[in-house]
């Protein structure tokens, strides 16, 4: 079957679905909710596939899930390449520091990645610990 890639892209965006079954995405959504509940400085997160398709998210208002899924996929892939070619091993996380807060990107298993948004002044270690735990749970959920 031949596919027009633009149509696929638009259909994927409109449907709002990746290839993940709804129960898996819901379960991942719950993991995100728990993480946000227990880590008060985390104010948003998105789980997406390595090739930039959104699976589940709780994003701060005004952020487009499709755009952030694509950007996170591109950035983490480039960071993986950088770290590998720099002989540093696979990145445990990528950290963006801004005046308005931080953004972490981490792998959540072989297929997914977790992008976490934190408030300005957030405790880095606490947020990262919560994010890593959530990433492990998400990897287990997606792998099942």
């Amino acid at each position, binding site marked *: *079957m*031949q*596919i*027009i*890639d*633009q*149509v*696929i*892209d*638009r*259909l*994927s*965006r409109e449907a709002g679905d*990746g*290839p993940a079954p709804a129960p898996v995405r819901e379960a991942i959504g719950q993991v995100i909710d728990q993480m946000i509940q227990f880590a008060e400085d985390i104010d948003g997160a998105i789980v997406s*596939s*390595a*090739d*930039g*398709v959104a699976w589940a998210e709780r994003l701060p208002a005004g952020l487009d899930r*499709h*755009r952030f*899924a*694509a*950007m996170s*996929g*591109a*950035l983490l*892939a*480039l960071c*993986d*390449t950088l770290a590998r*070619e720099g002989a540093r091993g696979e990145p445990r996380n990528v950290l963006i520091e801004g005046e308005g807060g931080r953004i972490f990107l981490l792998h959540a298993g072989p*297929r997914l990645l977790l992008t976490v948004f934190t408030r300005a002044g957030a405790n880095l270690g606490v947020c990262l610990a919560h994010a890593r735990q959530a990433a492990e749970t998400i990897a287990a959920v997606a792998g099942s």
Partner: protein
Amino acid sequence: MLAATEKIIFTGPVGAGKTTAIGAIADTPPVGTDVPCTDGAWALKSTTTVAMDYAYLLLDDGTRVHLYGTPGQERFDFMWSILARGGIGLVLLVNCDHPDPVAQMEFYLDAFADFIRETGVVIGLTRSDLAATVPLEAFQARLLERNQVVPVFEIDARNPEDVKVLIHALLAVLGH
């Protein structure tokens, strides 16, 4: 005259052969950011570029030509402008095996219109050896309707000589 270093951008739809073409002519193993496909593109290929391909080519006169490949999917269009910055021209690869490759050619010509206006473009049609594809004349006719004079070549993205033809054609278009 070319500067001591120059940058050429390869773009086009998913599966057109951008990663392949850069790999075919690069002097060193390309930097790649290919990951498994999970969207509709998986029916075309198992992996897809999500950030960029990068490699360089050394010309006989010592000029280093940097080759950057963009991701094909529209959701990565933010990478297109990032990668195009400072580029001297565009190589647009279109996969003739798609149902409407002429429309795909137009989409990318429009998406990169500002960059093309400042620099130049050549078009490579890949997979044209497969049965029942759109003929080269159809692409030329559409370009004529758009008042665009663009060299169009049927190439095999795996063949370094074919890809080099595109590079040389682009440099000729740019007046080098």
